[in-house]
């Protein structure tokens, strides 16, 4: 019997035994009788008209079962865009391109064969007659005069112009400011690269007319709804979508993609299961990319360093088509976070979304919030430099003071609770900041370039209050469901709409249930990732599983307890109002000897011979939780680097993080997510970049040989700690921990490098990643200026 509080305990993960023994169940592991294999024929060109597709030779190749092109897919609609902005231009995005291909990797045909190699061979025999057109991949050039027009519906390749904040007040703030600082900031394009490539297996059952789709998805119900109702026009209830073990997502597995849609459609025609697994090269070319902003940012300051105004103009590259949630990322998930943890006089941000001949861009871990945090924290350091202030002092001067229930920002959001100075103070102590500055001065005297960078961040997660996001353009509600089924034996099955692809829900959610019911975790199973078993769900992204998914489970547990009290009161001949639930027992308040264990109540609910009037048999409850607000984790990160002026190499000496994610259910799991997030953010600062060749539109960094994913010897141990400021938004008091590391870490690293180079007069580097080459060039330019 579990009696100690399980919330807050670092319990080893229950899912791990299968993963460490090779018994995980990933999509590509699935093998069905009669299964066929699919390979997609893709555009090798960034922009090209399709004159003709000749499949005749390929169709005769050994082992080929079927080949389909877009023209075969009659009655099939465009892949949908799930977030609309005013006057958003929405070009069609067909599962197989028919008229033209608009990025390298755009699929134009599917080849289905008896084996993977037969499908590959035949795909190479499909002949496409391309009329190659000029392309544009650059964010800054996409909307420029003379750039090729990518979609008829979007003149000048502009998808939207959007703004937020108070333009007049911001202009006034700049007019009255003693000092203004303006910088160009490029937030480069990234590729999510979960270690498991995307995959699907689609099966149609002729006898029942049902489909089953196994797919690498972070949100199987959303996948099903979008694919059936919007694209294929088949009844939603006839499709079961299963997302089994999924090997990481980081956002890239949220979206409805071409491949699973085409395989599902084709499985009915070939009457056999179809498996498709992405190669890594395909993953680089077709998994939705992240970031890709070019921004002009300007800060207005008082002489004393108070933040008076912030003006931001961003161009966001959306790629060739609108991916599922693309419009939301550079708007409502980005500019609404530009207030940061500071008090501002006024803020105005304008964002232009542009199409280009590149892979579609959508949410990648943090999604908009890392871009906002990077901009703000870089500008704070630039402001400090302009005023010759210490970057720690300027932050302290501008922090929003501690609050417990609500702070209205200048860009729409209402923060929940925060104590920003406390997290920063804790970080400074961990760091021994004054000592570092002394060491830095001494090192500089010897010609060594040491630097420190801060990032005092905030993010919005626990996504999201449905009414609010609905008013902003979301075409979905963002609540979550949680069903608790108590079996007659007192064992418990919990069905959550959240999906775990590394987050450890099978452990953390069981901790919530065990803690609430006072029963052993061994008696609890967490079921997720299957539309055939879970009532409905919105899935996992935006650090929402514990706060939104967990709260839905908690609500069902409360209902279970309330019903259990009625049953127990009847058995004890007591008043239900006098019942309490303590350590797995229903007890009469004040009479602890009068008690009924949870298991006895469960059995009674299913064998209701001695049972209260008017109470239904059975013990099973479902809840849908729609949060009243976002949650706002925050914290302070610091990075200490040494730059080798001769090579440009940046060495991370220390990385420190103090995060406040509200209450913590499992510290070990939270720390693990923070570590991984930091690594991804550091990698953006120093190494990762999706590079397109500007002439050909080819993705140059299109494999793991060319795109620098961080390795173990490029990263240090991270020094992590926490403050805990519970959110008032949900009863668990949890905010969300999945993205903090990625959001916070990038500016800490870049600020550290700039601080190191400040000895040479450098106050900004406008483009990431800070590769050795870029840093070396910056050093050389700075030296030649001196």
């Amino acid at each position, binding site marked *: 019997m579990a009696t100690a509080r399980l919330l807050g305990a670092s319990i080893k993960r229950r899912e*791990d035994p299968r993963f460490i023994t*090779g018994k*995980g169940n990933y999509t590509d592991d699935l093998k069905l009788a009669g299964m066929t294999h699919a390979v997609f024929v893709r555009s090798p060109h960034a922009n090209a008209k399709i004159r003709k597709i000749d499949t005749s030779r390929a169709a005769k190749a050994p082992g080929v079962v079927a080949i389909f092109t877009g023209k075969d897919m009659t009655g099939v609609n465009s892949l949908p865009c799930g977030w609309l902005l005013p006057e958003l231009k929405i070009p069609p995005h067909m599962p197989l391109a028919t008229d033209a291909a608009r990025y390298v990797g755009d699929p134009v045909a599917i080849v289905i064969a008896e084996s993977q190699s037969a499908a590959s061979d035949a795909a190479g025999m499909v002949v496409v007659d391309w009329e190659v057109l000029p392309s544009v991949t650059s964010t800054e050039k996409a909307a420029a005069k003379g750039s090729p027009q990518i979609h008829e519906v979007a003149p000048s390749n502009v998808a939207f112009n959007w703004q937020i904040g108070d333009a007049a007040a911001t202009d006034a703030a700049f007019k009255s400011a003693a000092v203004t600082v303006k910088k160009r900031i490029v937030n480069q394009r990234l590729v999510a690269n979960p270690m498991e490539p995307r995959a699907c297996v689609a099966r149609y059952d002729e006898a029942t007319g049902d489909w089953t789709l196994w797919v690498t998805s972070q949100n199987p119900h959303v996948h099903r709804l979008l694919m059936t109702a919007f694209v294929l026009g088949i009844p939603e209830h006839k499709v079961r979508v299963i997302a089994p073990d999924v*090997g990481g997502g980081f956002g890239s597995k949220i979206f409805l993609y071409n491949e699973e849609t085409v395989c599902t459609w084709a499985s009915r025609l070939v009457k056999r299961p179809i498996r498709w697994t992405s*190669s890594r090269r395909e993953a680089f070319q077709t998994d939705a990319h992240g970031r890709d902003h070019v921004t002009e940012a300007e800060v207005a300051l008082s002489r004393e360093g108070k933040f008076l105004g912030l003006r931001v103009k961003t161009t966001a590259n959306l790629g060739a088509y609108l991916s599922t949630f693309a419009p939301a990322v550079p708007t409502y998930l980005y500019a609404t976070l530009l207030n940061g943890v500071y008090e501002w006089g006024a803020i105005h941000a304008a964002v232009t979304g542009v199409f280009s001949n590149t892979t579609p861009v959508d949410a990648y871990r943090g999604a908009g919030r890392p871009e906002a945090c990077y901009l703000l924290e870089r500008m704070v350091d630039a402001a400090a430099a302009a005023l010759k202030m210490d970057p720690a002092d300027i932050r302290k001067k501008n922090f929003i003071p501690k609050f417990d229930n609500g702070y209205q920002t200048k860009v729409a959001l209402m923060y929940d609770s925060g104590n920003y100075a406390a997290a920063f103070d804790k970080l400074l102590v961990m760091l021994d900041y004054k000592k570092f500055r002394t060491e830095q001065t001494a090192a500089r005297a010897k010609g060594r370039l040491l630097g420190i960078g801060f990032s005092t961040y905030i993010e919005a997660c626990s996504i999201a209050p449905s009414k609010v996001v609905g008013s902003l353009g979301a075409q979905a509600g963002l609540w979550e469901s949680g069903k608790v089924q108590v079996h007659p034996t007192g064992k418990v099955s919990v069905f959550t709409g959240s999906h775990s692809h590394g987050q450890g829900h099978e452990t953390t959610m069981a901790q919530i249930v065990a803690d609430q019911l006072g029963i052993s975790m061994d008696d609890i199973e967490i079921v997720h990732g299957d539309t055939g078993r879970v009532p409905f769900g919105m899935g996992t992204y935006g650090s929402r599983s514990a706060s939104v998914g967990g709260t839905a489970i908690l609500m069902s547990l409360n209902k279970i307890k309330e019903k259990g009290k009625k049953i127990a009161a009847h058995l004890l001949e007591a008043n239900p109002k006098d019942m309490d639930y303590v350590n797995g027992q229903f007890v009469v308040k004040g009479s602890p000897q009068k008690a009924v264990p949870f298991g006895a109540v469960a059995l009674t609910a299913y064998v209701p011979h001695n049972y209260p009037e008017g109470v239904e048999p059975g013990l099973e409850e479902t809840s849908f939780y729609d949060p009243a607000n976002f949650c706002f984790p925050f914290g302070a990160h610091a990075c200490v680097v040494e730059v080798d002026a001769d090579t440009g190499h940046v060495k991370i000496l220390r990385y420190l993080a103090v995060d406040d994610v509200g209450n913590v259910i499992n510290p070990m799991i939270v720390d*693990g997510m923070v570590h991984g997030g930091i690594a991804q953010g550091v990698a953006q600062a120093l190494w990762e970049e999706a590079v397109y060749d500007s002439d050909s539109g080819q993705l140059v960094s299109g494999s793991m040989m060319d795109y620098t994913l961080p*390795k173990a010897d490029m990263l240090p141990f*991270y020094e992590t700690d926490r403050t805990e400021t519970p959110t008032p938004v949900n009863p668990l008091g949890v905010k969300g921990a999945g993205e903090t590391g990625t959001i916070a870490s990038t500016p800490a690293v870049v600020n550290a490098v700039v601080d190191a180079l400040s000895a040479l007069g450098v106050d900004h580097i406008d483009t990431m990643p800070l590769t050795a080459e870029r840093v070396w060039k910056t050093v050389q330019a700075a030296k030649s200026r001196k």
Partner: protein
Amino acid sequence: MKKTVSMTINGAPQSHDVEPRLLLVHYIRELAGLTGTHVGCDTSQCGACTVHVNGVAVKSCTLLAMQCESAQVLTIEGLAKDGKLHPIQDAFWEKHGLQCGFCTPGMIMSAHQMLQRNPRPTEAQIRHDLEGNLCRCTGYHNIVKAIQYAAEQMAGK
């Protein structure tokens, strides 16, 4: 066209007719049915497919199945003995050295070789020796801790 290739995987004999171009990793996954060995890239960077062939850790996507005729192959499924986890498996569990689990089998097989060659590696040596294995979830922090812990546990025996 097809050739018969026989080998021993985790102590069990395997014999399958294969196309000469078939990679060892697909022999293991598709023909032997052992799906714990994963494919994460096309270019031998990620190491998710790491297995032992005749006692040497190799990326099974870099070998043809035909090169492994009569070989002794050890995969992640063969590491636990009599239902008891190998100390490295236990260490990854204990130290939270995995999240999504996809890179984990390759990490464990690499770590296994690493500790055979150097039973008490330093942090720097562990990080260097993991250069052939990519993880996107953990930032490597707890993987390094797990290997340090495994080394301690194995030395204590």
